[in-house]
């Protein structure tokens, strides 16, 4: 591991000043991804600035929704009774990710900023445009089972690994950022980028920007919401494909609907086209298929030495249909007869 210093400032503002003043400084929160990257040589900062205890570790009621401090552990967020009752999609997404130990370490602010698990990104002996811009993409023609089918570029076909982020995208969350120029709120949908010709930039955040809290607005429809993750083993694995969705029905017709996909793109993928098909429709297998078709119209499979990732296209279609069927068939917890 390359030598570095580790600062432990006393306030978030001090931390922002410290990172902003040093181009080779990075924030350290739960460390579950960064400490591994320090060992692998994927990250080689001169300075770590520990922010683990500098942002709120509390979940507060906020305008009918929730304000989640960036320091809230993934395990605490998943166990929160308000999240479980009002935003089950978020609790389910969190519980489907990583292991209990990692969820005890990982934070609300850090989770969305974790980096791709593309094997080439993590292997410093191979070219990778995300790790080393301009060096090439080793995934093209390589192992692509976990790679993107939507929004990829010739420079990068990596996928975003977070489950929590897919749920927060469906929930129209807001990301509160403290930066060198002050505070601002970034809509969660705008946080992550598609790779284009700058796959080294995962998000729109600039150097020194620190996530201080994430707000989730009131969403009555989210009481009937779900996260379904499909992976190579039953636990402790990243998603091949995942679906976060919530639906409310009025007189048997879809009123509110949110759909986001994980494991398919460089960023958590909001399925606006699918939502458009579903809104105002009467739930049926045909409608679900039409929604998936609309969203996947531009999907492109990758060849690969492992057989490629063409399987993801029908897998998204089936997983989306299964989630929508569950959400529109079953009575919710507060309805009688369950």
């Amino acid at each position, binding site marked *: 591991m390359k030598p570095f210093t580790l600062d432990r400032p006393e306030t978030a503002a001090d931390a922002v000043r410290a990172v902003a003043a040093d181009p080779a400084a990075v924030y350290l929160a739960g460390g579950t991804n960064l400490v591994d990257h320090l060992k692998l040589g994927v990250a080689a900062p001169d300075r770590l600035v520990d922010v*683990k205890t500098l942002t709120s570790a509390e979940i507060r009621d906020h305008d009918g929704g929730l304000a989640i401090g960036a320091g809230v552990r993934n395990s605490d967020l998943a*166990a929160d009774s308000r999240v479980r009752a009002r935003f089950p999609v978020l609790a389910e997404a969190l519980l489907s990710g990583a292991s209990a130990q990692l969820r*005890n370490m990982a934070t609300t602010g850090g989770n969305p900023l974790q980096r791709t698990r593309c094997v080439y990104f993590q292997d410093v002996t191979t070219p990778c445009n995300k790790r080393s811009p301009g060096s090439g993409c080793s995934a093209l023609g390589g192992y692509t089972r976990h790679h993107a089918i939507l929004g990829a570029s010739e420079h990068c076909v990596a996928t975003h690994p977070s489950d929590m982020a897919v749920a927060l995208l469906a929930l129209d969350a807001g990301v509160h950022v403290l930066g060198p120029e002050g505070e601002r709120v970034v809509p969660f949908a705008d946080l992550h980028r598609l790779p284009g010709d700058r796959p080294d930039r995962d998000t729109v955040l600039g150097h020194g920007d620190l996530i201080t809290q994430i707000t989730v607005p009131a969403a009555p429809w989210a009481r009937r919401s779900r996260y379904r993750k499909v992976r190579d083993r039953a636990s402790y694995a990243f998603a091949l494909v995942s679906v976060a969705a919530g639906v409310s029905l009025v007189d048997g017709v879809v009123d509110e609907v949110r759909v986001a996909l994980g494991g398919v793109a460089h960023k958590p993928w909001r399925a606006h086209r699918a939502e458009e098909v579903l809104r105002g429709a009467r739930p049926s297998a045909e409608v679900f298929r039409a929604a998936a078709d609309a969203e996947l119209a531009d999907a492109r499979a990758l060849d690969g030495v492992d057989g490629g990732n063409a399987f993801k296209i029908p897998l998204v279609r089936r997983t989306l249909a299964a989630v929508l069927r569950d959400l529109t068939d079953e009575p919710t917890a507060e309805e009688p007869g369950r």
Partner: protein
Amino acid sequence: MATTETAGGSRTIELRVDGTAYRPAVDPRRTLLDLLREQLGVTSPKKGCDHGQCGACTVLLDGRRVLACLVLALTCDGAEVTTAAGLADGDHLHPLQQAFLEHDGFQCGYCTPGQICSAAGLLAEFDAGAPSHVTASVSDTPQWTDEEIAERMSGNLCRCGAYVGIVAAIRQAGEAR
């Protein structure tokens, strides 16, 4: 907690491990796992993958199970660390340790301290009513089943494949409370 800067970027921190107080000088690169094993001589937590994938290094950090290989030691100033060895009360084994013996919850034993610390964390989380990925509905209180135990232990790998005994041991320790 006051820290003292020394040459080479090392700083002195204070922490308690299994009830004993230490004041080591710590290099910023040092993980909690390496601090425990290499510097303090506490060899109960094991180094398996060193990348957060196997769970052999699991310890309780301020009461919660974490992976010591992914925690930088300097961030543990003022912390209370409990390893599997520290769960016992002298020669009197912790119920989880006794149950692992009775159910053959291991073969080579290398993953066992991590398994036992992880199981101790599991029991506390279950007692607090925390749901898991296999809980029927996240709004429900979880039921004490083998499926719940297996899911909650998925972060601890056992290359010998002693999983059946591990689940039985945790089931027994959980029921005996």
